[in-house]
């Protein structure tokens, strides 16, 4: 009887352990840390290709360019203080992100690398700090700043201080560098 009870407790414990670990497993699957190596390191930084052009590894943002990930990316851009150095895309300490011409490349894989590995002149290396799926959401948002995402998926309104027209000193609009 005692033996049976002990076995029962053991089974119950095993079941509950499997259940919780299943949930954990789910989360980890989502984070898929192995992708960093595949996507990030393949990002090409130079247009020059010795011995002629090679096929560029196709890297797509696994979170796709949907409204959910872009708006999550926008939230995370504030949350991780990207906004402190890049403002709302216009730049400050860091370069502007509303632009077409990137120092380190504007493809999703380049942006992923920029965020995870950092860049020498003051861009922090966020690898190990921001979960990978969130990095992709931020990538999606950063690309939306440069108008590289489907218009329909891009958030209409940002949460920043709204512009009061009378206080714009000189209306230089639509400028992209």
């Amino acid at each position: 009887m005692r033996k049976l009870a002990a076995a029962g407790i053991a089974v119950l414990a095993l079941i509950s352990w499997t259940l919780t670990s299943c949930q954990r497993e789910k989360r980890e699957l989502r984070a898929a840390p192995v992708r960093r190596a595949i996507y990030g390191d393949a990002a090409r930084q130079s247009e020059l290709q010795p011995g002629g052009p090679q096929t560029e590894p196709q890297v797509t943002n696994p979170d796709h360019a949907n409204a959910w990930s872009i708006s999550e990316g926008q939230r995370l851009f504030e949350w991780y203080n990207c906004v402190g150095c890049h403002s709302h895309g216009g730049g400050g300490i860091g370069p502007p992100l509303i632009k077409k011409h990137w120092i380190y490349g504007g493809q999703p894989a380049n942006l992923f690398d920029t965020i995870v590995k950092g860049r020498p002149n003051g861009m922090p290396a966020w690898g190990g700090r921001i979960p990978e799926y969130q990095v992709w959401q931020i990538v999606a948002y950063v690309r939306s700043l440069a108008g590289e995402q489907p218009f329909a998926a891009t958030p209409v309104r940002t949460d920043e201080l709204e512009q009061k027209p009378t206080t714009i000193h000189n209306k230089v609009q639509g400028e992209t560098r």
Partner: protein
Amino acid sequence: MHGVRTRQLRLSTLFLMAPAIAQIQNQPDDGQWPMPAKNYASTRYSTLDQINTGNVKNLKLAWTFSTGMTRGHEAAPLVVNNTMYIVTPFPNVLYALDLTKPGAPVKWEYQPHPSPASQGVACCDVVNRGAAYYNGRVYYNTLDVHTVAVDANTGKEVWNTKLGDINLGESMTMAPLVVKGKVIVGNSGGEFGVRGWLAGLDADTGTIAWRAYATGPDKDVLIGPNFKPFYESERGKDLGVKSWQGDTWKIGGGPGWSWISYDPGLDLIYYGTGNPGPWNPDMRPGDNKWACTLFARRPETGEAIWAYQLNPHDVHDYDGINENILLDLNIKGQTRKVLAHPDRNGRMYIMDRTNGQVITAEPFAFLNTSEYVDLNTGRLKVNTAKVTGFKTVRDICPAAPGGKDWQPSSFSPKTNLIYIPHNNLCMEFQGVQANYIAGTPYVGANVRMYAGPGGNRGEVSAYDPVNAKTVWAVKEDFPAWSGTVVTAGDVLFYGTMDGWFKALDDRSGNLLWQFKAGSGIIGQPVTYKGPDGKQYVAVLSGVGGWAGAVVAGGINTQDGTAALGFANAMTDLGKHTTKGGTLYVFALP
């Protein structure tokens, strides 16, 4: 007979002037420029008078020097022993130029190789405000929080001391002051939640003799039994802890990126601390001592003698780091040892520097954020309608860079006027949640700036410190972000962000001469006697800094909040100037 009479006259004028010579503003002057503010009293006044109001119109370019760098050039060139010393913005190269040879060729060059990553923690461009010469060495700070000592003759590094950590958001941009064998330096990082400090280093060895924090318990702030502040509100134990909630003082700011002055008679140094962090004041209830505070300390020990908080519980990023000009003035029939401090909050504080009492605190710039300073309690009466927090407040004047920012004023003992280069900016401010991640900005505010009343974004004015009023003011389209220098020739020099280097009559403000430089001027002009006995005027051009980040940092002004909101006020700067650092030196033909 005639001769005798003149001599008698001279003697009597000398006699009349005798008490004046004892005044701290009448500093000895050998025609050199050994520290950014020229002298310990920080007057930026030169007794050279070859260039004067009558002949300044003939001023011509003598020679130039390119730094090859494109960020903001805020430093003052130094001139000692016929050598000119220039510190560049990051990577903080130190050049020594030989003034005895035609065209002033490079004598030597010293490269400290600061960490490139430090550029990420420089809130407002990777500027440097210059070096200080002392006993055969040149001392200055690098962006990555090192202080270095370089042999003035050989350019060899004598010592190099690391004082802080960029991974805590610390950087260094200020110019040291060397007093009694101590190199006094402080950190930057008020936008990164640093814990502010000022430190005294042994000039011989570079070892840290003392460090005075701006927040925390009295023992860290170097407040002891000799601390005697004038006002009740500054008295009490451990106010640097008690005026904060919990342990937020540990990331509370109050950085020491300040100008420092020294009174040898009283043996006191004077400096102010920067803003508390984050900008959003609702995140840090309390007075937030000792941010935005003027301190008087002993140079050898750092011991605090008095303190006065200019902006308790700062709600507008009004750092207290601006210059303190030391003057002995006759106020209401009494000779008062004062310091003149034009604060970010737009008021000119004339204070008794022996004890920290406010004598007057009248506006020198347009403001609506405060009503007055209560002279009994010393407390600033804040306009509650302009208090920021978790909300949006509009039409706040002055804006975050203040009535004036770091750009230093000068004082002429001939005119008894203070020449203030300043801003005319207002802002809208939206407080948001700030998330502390060490090494990243800790601000919690979206800001947008724009020109104040009148539409001009800057002004240079002459302020009478005895009668506490502005005597004349000249409007500038852009913020007047360069220092001023004034001479015995009654000429006032300064530069503008659109690249004009100007000479004004110091009594009227009339423009006498101007020269268009290659890039906007945000540096500190100096004047010196060359080896040929001629008077020269020198200034670095090279737009940038917080105000010029729009050009130097290639900001996209579609986002008005860029560069902490300065972008919005400067959208047209790129039409007036481009970037690039060049030294210009002028002389009469």
